[in-house]
């Protein structure tokens, strides 16, 4: 297979500087791929896909009664992040998570950031993710967001941006681990020739992060992963992480609050649970505290949590930080809590509740991307340049009716990575979600889930919209050639 006629075009390409000119650090990979025929490359692609299916790296499709499992389309050309880029990203992500955690402690505590006039109170209280029952709670070690997946993108000029914070239950890390396992068998030689940072210690780091939340006096704390059940779209990941950490995978019906503690029902009676890595949303956690119709949670769990008798990761209430209006205030948070300038910038964001911003947004709907503040997964979105006048009109009405619920951003032209499409290599747009753990220290897993828009020209990378995945290779500092 030849990259000869691969043209990066007028985009930022992660592997190529220009046509026929790969970035120096990725040369061994390009050489290797050039040495393979298109059929060999396609065979490897197929083998990788089959291996993922056999490993069971599947996601469920709710409406499908037959089989119900699918494999995310996987592309074998990796996305590569250079060592200097990564060093900077790592610092930036640590800074951001530290600031967001301080913000969460603050707004569920003294609310100094409101009192000091940095963020308007009504912005916090009107956020869907803000949970008044969490006010006054002091989670173990003061940590709220133990597991975060931050979505990063690069614009046409190569500038990195934070697109979204995911502090609730970010998923996808199982793909990072499984994709890597498959890639090692796909390009073993390249792994020997390039200094690629390993990602495999994630489950161990995650377990440490969770154990860090148990009271230090407990000699052998019980950690569990809590799943909504086997029909959840990310069930494979829940099961995989429990297996990798060697802890129980529980559902709400396995748990009960008894004698003031959270306990699980075992064949030998009730057993106390100390730390829960919960993979269901806040509102389902406890029917007595939040949604009374939740069948997935445990009645009384919040009381036990409030008394400090069980740790929840992430703590309830972190969703407020995922609000896209709150997102716009992160640079101010970094400054306020840490006295620093934000390292990785936000995408410039117009807040529709501010009259000047709103006027600008309504003027420029054909150039902007409009997003609902509390939606994720590509829902409730208007991509202005691709929308019809009617769609823009409809969004204008919605914005005027509920300005707090909408933000707008310039349309970014995401960076691209060569991707095997049919018999050709084509540039496809990507984003990147690294995973960050907040335990004794903040740890950023060197890699992440690269989502790729497989539809030609598409800028939407969500798996529900024809997106796929790629392995992400973070390069270590240069190794001397021997």
């Amino acid at each position: 297979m030849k990259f000869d006629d691969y043209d990066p075009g007028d985009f930022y390409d992660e592997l190529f500087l220009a046509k026929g000119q790969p970035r120096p650090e990725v040369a061994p990979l390009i050489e290797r791929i050039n040495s393979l025929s298109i059929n060999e490359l396609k065979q490897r692609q197929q083998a990788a896909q089959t291996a993922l299916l056999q490993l069971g790296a599947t996601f469920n499709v709710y409406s499908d009664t037959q089989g119900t499992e699918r494999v995310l389309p996987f592309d074998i050309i990796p996305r590569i992040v250079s060592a200097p880029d990564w060093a900077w990203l790592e610092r930036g992500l640590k800074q951001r998570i530290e600031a967001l955690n301080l913000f969460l402690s603050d707004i569920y505590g003294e609310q100094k950031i409101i009192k000091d006039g940095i963020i308007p109170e009504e912005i916090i209280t009107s956020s869907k993710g803000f949970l008044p029952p969490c006010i006054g709670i002091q989670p173990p070690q003061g940590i709220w967001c133990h597991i975060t997946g931050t979505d990063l993108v690069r614009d046409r000029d190569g500038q990195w941006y934070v697109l979204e914070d995911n502090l609730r239950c970010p998923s996808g890390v199982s793909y990072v681990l499984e994709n890597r396992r498959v890639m090692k068998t796909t390009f073993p030689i390249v792994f020997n020739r390039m200094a690629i940072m390993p990602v495999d210690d994630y489950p161990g780091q995650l377990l440490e992060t969770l154990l860090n939340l148990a009271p230090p006096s407990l000699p052998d704390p019980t950690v569990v992963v809590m799943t909504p059940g086997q029909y959840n779209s990310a069930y494979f990941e829940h099961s995989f992480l429990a297996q990798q950490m060697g802890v129980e995978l529980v559902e709400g019906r396995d748990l009960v609050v008894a004698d003031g503690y959270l306990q699980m029902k075992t064949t030998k009676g009730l057993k106390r649970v100390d730390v829960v890595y919960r993979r269901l949303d806040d509102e389902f956690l406890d029917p007595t505290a939040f949604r009374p119709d939740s069948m997935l949670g445990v009645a009384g769990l919040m009381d036990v949590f409030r008394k400090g008798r069980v740790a929840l990761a992430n703590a309830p209430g972190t969703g407020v930080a995922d609000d896209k209006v709150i997102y716009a205030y992160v640079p101010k948070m970094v400054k306020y809590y840490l006295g620093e300038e934000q390292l990785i910038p936000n995408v410039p964001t117009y807040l529709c509740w501010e009259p000047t911003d709103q006027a600008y947004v309504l003027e420029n709907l054909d150039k902007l991307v409009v997003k609902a503040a509390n939606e994720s997964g590509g829902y409730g979105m208007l991509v202005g340049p691709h929308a019809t006048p009617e769609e823009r009109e409809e969004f204008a009405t919605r914005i005027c009716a509920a300005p707090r619920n909408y933000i707008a951003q310039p349309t970014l032209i995401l960076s691209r990575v060569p991707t095997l499409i049919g018999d050709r290599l084509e540039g496809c747009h990507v984003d990147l979600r690294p995973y960050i753990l907040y335990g004794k220290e903040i740890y950023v897993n060197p890699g992440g889930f690269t989502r790729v828009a497989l539809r030609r020209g598409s800028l939407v990378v969500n798996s529900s919209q024809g997106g796929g995945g790629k392995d992400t290779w973070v390069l270590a500092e240069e190794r001397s050639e021997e």
Partner: protein
Amino acid sequence: MLSRVANSIYWLNRYVERAENVARFVDVNLNLLMDSPMGTAQQWEPLIRTTGDLALFQERYGDATADNVIQFLTFDSSYPNSIISCLQSARENARSVREIISSEMWERVNAFYFLVRDASKTSPMTNISNFFSDVKMESHLFAGVMDGTMTHNEAWHFGQLGRMVERADKTARILDVKYFILLPSVKDVGTPLDELQWISLLKSTSGYEMYRKCQHRITPQDVVQFLVLDREFPRSIQFCLLQAERSLHHITGGAPGIWHNPVERTLGKLRSELDYTTIEEITSQGLHEFLDQLEDTFNDVHHKIHETFFELKVV
């Protein structure tokens, strides 16, 4: 371990074993019919009668023809004990405990399910006997893979317990088929036809050759003794009970011969009763009545397993 997980592994094994035994069940009848003299009316209704689901069958299918009965017991996904339903349930159970069982086990259950699902689409009535052989083999493969790839821990013993309880129950029912078949023709007892029927029955439990090694002649009494009381043949009822009890005591950690919970008591009592029962006692009581009672006790054992391990009462 979690009660829900124990429950899933127990049922995973019961369903796989049940699928195998339904195949044996139908197979014994197919064999019997082939050995029957020309002109004998085909007897398919007894098969349904022993499942206890005769009313359901009649309501849905009407006449107990070969095709109807085989369809009902094999591919009817709305009948919960059909082979295909068993595999569906086994797979759902396996899926919910994937992080507990070995990945080889999960792959086996999947392959087994797809075998049955694909067969259900083509309805291989002409080649149905081969299909039943495949079902039996898949079940053996699953049991073997589980034995050879999963730690023999508490979870494994719950699986084993499920398999043995199910097998004991189904061996009793397979014996009962013979009783129902014989009923309309008492005069045939002791004839060559009768002997052929007992041979078919032994074959359908894979027991014919093993039986010959310890008993030379085929007599009803010896066959029943073999399938009920033999302590070494893996499909005999007593063998199953011994294994089930062994797993049970592994799970509880209690010493054999002493009981600490209702399961240990019920199962131990039944097993020791059979230890001291003779075949003469069984026949004088009547085989069908004896089997009926056994099946009731198996149900009781199952309910006690459920209450003791799976349905924790929180006060």
